[in-house]
C-alpha cells in the first residue's frame, strides 16, 4: 500500500447516535483525532460517497458530528447503527482561534446547522466560563421542530446568556420568534476592544448578521465566520472550494471578517 496517501480513510466505530431532529442525527465515533474547534473531516461510506462534515464536539477518544440527511450519502449514514463503522480522514482546515477569545466578551450567533461547528467552543467555555468576561449566545432555527441540541441549550442557559429564536413559531412555541438579526441590537457591548463575535450559518444569515454587528460599531477584525463549501478533497487539490485565490479547505473554513468580506464567489 502507498505510504503517505492523504486520500486513505480510516474506519471508526459509531459508539452513540443521538436523534436531534427528524433529519439531524449526531454520531459519536471512537477515535483519537484531536481537532481544533471548527475543523472538519471527510466522512465516507465506501462505495457510497464522501463529504465534508464539521466536527461538532470532541473529547478523550471520541468526536461528534451532527449530520443532516440531505442526499444519498447522508441518507445511508442515517441508516447506520451503533457498532457500525464510518470512514474518516482529517481533520482539515483551520479552526477558530480559541486562545484569542479568552478573557474577552464572546458573542456567538449561530443559525441552524451552523450551531454544529461552534458547539465545541460553547461547551469549552461553558465548562470554563471564568475564562470569559461575558458570553452571549444567539441561536436561531427555522421552526421549533428544527431546534438542535435542545437539552444542551437548556444546560447552557445556566451560565451563558442564551437567546433562542425561531423564524416562525407554532402553537406550542412560547419563546422568541424572528430572525437572529432582530436580537443583535439587544446585546450590550461595553468595550469593543474586548469583544469577539463568531457568526456561523447559511451565507445569507452570516451576511446580514455581520451587518447588524457592524452597525453596532463592532470592528471588522473582531468578527469571525465559517464557510461551507463543496469540499471534495479537503487538501487543496480538487478546486471545488476555491474562492478567488483562497482555498476554503486550506485557509478556512474559519475566516476573519476582514478577509471574508472580500471573498466573492
Amino acid at each position, binding site marked *: *500500500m*502507498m505510504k*503517505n*496517501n*492523504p*486520500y*486513505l*480513510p480510516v474506519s471508526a466505530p459509531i459508539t452513540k447516535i443521538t436523534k436531534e431532529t427528524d433529519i439531524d442525527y449526531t454520531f459519536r465515533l471512537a477515535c483519537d483525532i484531536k481537532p481544533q474547534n471548527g475543523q472538519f473531516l471527510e466522512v*465516507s*461510506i*465506501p*462505495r*457510497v*460517497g*464522501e*463529504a465534508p462534515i464539521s466536527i461538532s464536539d470532541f473529547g478523550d477518544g471520541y468526536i461528534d458530528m451532527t449530520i*443532516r440527511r*440531505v*442526499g444519498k*450519502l*447522508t441518507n445511508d449514514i442515517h441508516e447506520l447503527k451503533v457498532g457500525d463503522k464510518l470512514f474518516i480522514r482529517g481533520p482539515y482546515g483551520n479552526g477558530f482561534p480559541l486562545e484569542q477569545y479568552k478573557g474577552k466578551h464572546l458573542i456567538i450567533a449561530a443559525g441552524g446547522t451552523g450551531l454544529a461547528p461552534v458547539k465545541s467552543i460553547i461547551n469549552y467555555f461553558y465548562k470554563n466560563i471564568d475564562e470569559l468576561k461575558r458570553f452571549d449566545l444567539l441561536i436561531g432555527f427555522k421552526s421549533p421542530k428544527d431546534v438542535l441540541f435542545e437539552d444542551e441549550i437548556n444546560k447552557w442557559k445556566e451560565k451563558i446568556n442564551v437567546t433562542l429564536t425561531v423564524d416562525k413559531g407554532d402553537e406550542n412555541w412560547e419563546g422568541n420568534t424572528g430572525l437572529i438579526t432582530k436580537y443583535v441590537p439587544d446585546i450590550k457591548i461595553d468595550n469593543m476592544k474586548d469583544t469577539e463575535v463568531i457568526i456561523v450559518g447559511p451565507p445569507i444569515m452570516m451576511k446580514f448578521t455581520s451587518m447588524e454587528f457592524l452597525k453596532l460599531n463592532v470592528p471588522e477584525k473582531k468578527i469571525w465566520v465559517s464557510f*461551507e*463549501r*463543496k469540499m*471534495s*478533497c479537503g*487538501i*487543496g*487539490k*480538487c*478546486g*471545488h472550494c*476555491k474562492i*478567488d*485565490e483562497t*482555498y476554503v*479547505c*486550506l485557509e478556512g473554513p474559519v475566516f476573519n471578517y476582514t478577509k471574508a468580506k*472580500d471573498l*466573492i*464567489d
Partner: protein
Amino acid sequence: MGYQLLNKDFNDILNQLKSEYKIYGPKRFENKGRFSDTDVIGYGEIDKLEDIVLDEKTYFSPKEIIYPIRQTLFYFTEDEVKVPDAPEDKVIVFLRPCDINGIKRLDTIFLENGPYKDVYYERLREKVKFFMIECTEGFDSCFCVSMNSNKTHDYAVAIRFNEENVLIDLKDRDLLEYFENYGKAEEFTPEYIKENKAKVSIPYPEKVTNEMFEHEVWQEYTRRCIGCGRCNTSCITCSCFTMQDVYYDANKKVGERRRVWASCQIDVFTNMAGGHGFREKQGQRMRFKTMHKINDFYKRFGFHMCVGCGRCDDVCPEYISFSKCINKLYSIVEEGNNDEK
C-alpha cells in the same frame, strides 16, 4: 549532447525505447472529430515518427497521460481497502513547450498546494520523460509568448523535425545508450517561437479589484456560454476533480472510490449536498475561470496558470475566445475602457 539522425534511425531508437517506455505523441484519430467525417488530433501511443502529427494542434492536451480522466483511488471489498498498483511502464511524451509548462502548473497544484503531495499524481508524473517538439510557428489561437510559456529547458530530449532527418538535443543521460550508436554528433539548440498571431495583455493582478467582478463584461458570457465544459477538459492546466464512489454489485459490497475531472463551467461544480450552489450564472463561472488562470494562481505561486495553448478557443462550440476575454479585461482595468466591445 547534439545528434543528427536519419528518420529511419530515429524510428529504430523509438522501437528500442518501446521495450522500456510507453511512447505517446500527437496523432490522428480518424472520424472522431467534431463534425462527421472529420478527424481529431489527440494524444495516443505512437510507433514511429510518421505517426506524429506536427501540422495541427491537438484537440486535447497530453494531461490525461499523467492525470487520467477517471482514476481509481481505492478498491473496496467488504472489509478491505486496496490501492491499485501504479502502472509499471515508464512514459515518453512528445509535446510542445507550452504543454511542458502546463504540466508544471499541474505539478504546482498536485505536489505543492496544501500540506500533502498528491501521491496518485506523483507516481505517474515521476515516470514521464518529455520529448520536446521544437515549436517556432505555433497555430492561430496560440498566445504562449504573452504567457511567458513559449520556452522551457525542462526536457529529456528536444527535437527538430526536418524532411529527412531529425536534430536532437539530448539532456537525459539515462537515454544516452539509445542514441549514441546512431547518427552523427551535431550541436543543436532548439529555438522557440518569438511572436504569436494572438497576443494578450494581462491586467496587473493588484489592479483587478472586486468591482471587476460585478462588471457587465461578464454578462456577455452568460448569454453565450452553454456550460459544456470543453474549455476545461481540453486545457492542459485545468486540474479540478470530484471524488466519486461507485459499487459494482447489487448489495453494495464491492466498489471503488475514484476521482473524475470536474469543470468549473458546469452546473454542479459548487453544489453542496442538499443542492445549494454558488456562481449560478455562466458569466460568473467565466469570471471564476478567467481569474484562476490569470490572477488567483499567480497570487499564490508567482506565475500564471494559463500557458496560452489556445485550446479553449479551439474547442468552444460558441466561439468564445479566452484570449479576447483577457484583452477585454485588460482594456477595462488598465485603460479604464468601459465600453462593451
